[in-house]
């Protein structure tokens, strides 16, 4: 389980997180929603330890991460996988090498086993016949899927997805949603998904958290989210201009 306790973070004078309390329960799919710039990616980077909170604590598996040193972080990250918002593929490697990278780093598998595993993962994300392509020759959606394959290559216990389906066509979005649901059901891992797409959020989420002006304004089950009369959530879900959202901040 991952728990944020009164986490605050500012960049310069700009406060981004302002006392965030939330939990990502073990073995569940949590979806984080919130407008662009609300600090969703910043939350994931806190979980990975790339950004340290100004105040407050982040608990991972019952441990206080403020007491972790670099080495402990690295050790724990082996159990994590992350899909970056802009994919962050290694452009010095082709598709195959990107997905194989974590396997080569952290397992002692033979080259054949690695090849088989990579092809398996690529097939899962719906990418076949692209393994020899340079990452710079891929479309945005293809990059996303390579990133996804790389993030789940080691079958990690915790996977963080930063907008896995933005920039994908509706059919592939559906494929990815199904993939997230299936792999999660198979492995029982903890998934955290950032999404703008409410239809997809409702499909996959066990739990939905909404972030607004540095605070958590909604944090409940998917069903509760569908039935809530919280005006912020309603406005976000329905994408309306009029409502409590401060559009110009």
């Amino acid at each position, binding site marked *: 389980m991952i728990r944020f306790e009164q986490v605050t973070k500012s960049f310069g004078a700009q406060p981004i997180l302002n006392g965030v309390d939330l939990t990502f329960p073990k073995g569940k799919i949590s979806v984080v929603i919130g407008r662009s710039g609300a600090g969703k990616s910043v939350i994931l*980077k806190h979980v*990975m*330890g*790339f950004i340290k909170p100004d105040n407050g604590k982040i608990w991972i598996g019952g441990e206080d991460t403020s007491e972790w040193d670099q080495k402990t972080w*690295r*050790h724990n*990250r*082996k159990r*994590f*996988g*992350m899909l*970056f918002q*802009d994919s*962050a*593929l*290694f*452009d*010095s490697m082709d598709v195959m090498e990107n997905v194989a*990278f*974590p396997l080569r*780093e*952290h397992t002692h598998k033979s080259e054949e086993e690695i090849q088989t595993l990579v092809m398996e993962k690529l097939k899962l994300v719906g990418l076949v016949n692209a393994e020899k392509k340079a990452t710079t020759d891929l479309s945005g959606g293809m990059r996303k899927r390579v990133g996804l394959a790389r993030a789940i290559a080691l079958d990690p216990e915790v996977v963080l997805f930063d907008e896995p389906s933005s920039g994908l066509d509706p059919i592939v979005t559906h494929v990815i949603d199904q993939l997230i649901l299936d792999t999660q059901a198979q492995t029982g891992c903890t998934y955290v998904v950032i999404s703008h797409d409410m239809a997809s959020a409702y499909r996959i989420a066990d739990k939905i958290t909404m972030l607004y002006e540095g605070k958590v304004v909604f944090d409940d089950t998917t069903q509760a989210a569908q039935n809530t009369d919280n005006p912020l959530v309603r406005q976000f879900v329905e994408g309306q201009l009029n409502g409590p959202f401060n559009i110009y901040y």
Partner: protein
Amino acid sequence: MKRSIFGVKAWVAASLEGLAQTIREQSYRQVPESVGRFSIHQVLTLGRAGFLCAAAVAALFRPPFRWRLFTKQLEFIGNKSLVVITLTGFAVGAILSLQLAHTLRNFGSENLVGGVVALIMARELGPLMAALMINGRVASAIAAEIGTMRVTEQIDALESMAVDPVQYLLSPRLVAGTLILPVMTMIFNMIGMIACWLVSIVLLQLDEGVFFAKIDDFVGIAEILKGLIKSSIFGFILAFIGCYKGFYTRGGAQGVGQATTQAVVIGSVVILLTDYFIGAFLL
């Protein structure tokens, strides 16, 4: 004439007025402050660079040992610099020999050309020129590559897969730079001496026996070694400055551009300064 005197007067008056205003507003008080802030910034930068350097060197001594990355960097820094090293080595050797021969002829000692050129190349010009040429090519490329990885979150991606980016990216480049620069310097010197031979023997028809005897006289193994040690120091410096600038790049494509230019400029300055201090105090 009159007008120009009037101009000077106006200028003096304006300067005095500016000075008076500075004193009135006490804005001179900011001078020590900004000097202080500047120095603190420099000290912090040096500290950060020192830590990064120490981390990169320390990472060499713990597994995994990344041979493949190391050989790739050897190839990139060394092999790909061969053309530029050959061309400049030849040019420097030829130009130096020609100029020296003309000067030495005034003293009737043009036979010394081979020895003098060999000495200058081994001790000074070989290490320095090779380092500066490779710095232009390599420090910028390293800064651009690592800087792009930084701004496109590829370095975070390495971290997310529990890979130490310092060990993965910096250490192999530092070792490769340190080891390959002496080799490049030797090549530079060899080509330079071939050029020297062509100019002295083929072009100016000097005595070949004396030519080689003087080289033997002037340049001992110690001189060559000193030059090679120096060049490996330069190799470390240029690789590290490229890495440092790349690793702390901020601000997208523009940031990468700045890091690239700065790496080359700072690299050249630091190499020249180091060369001076090594020459003055150590070797």
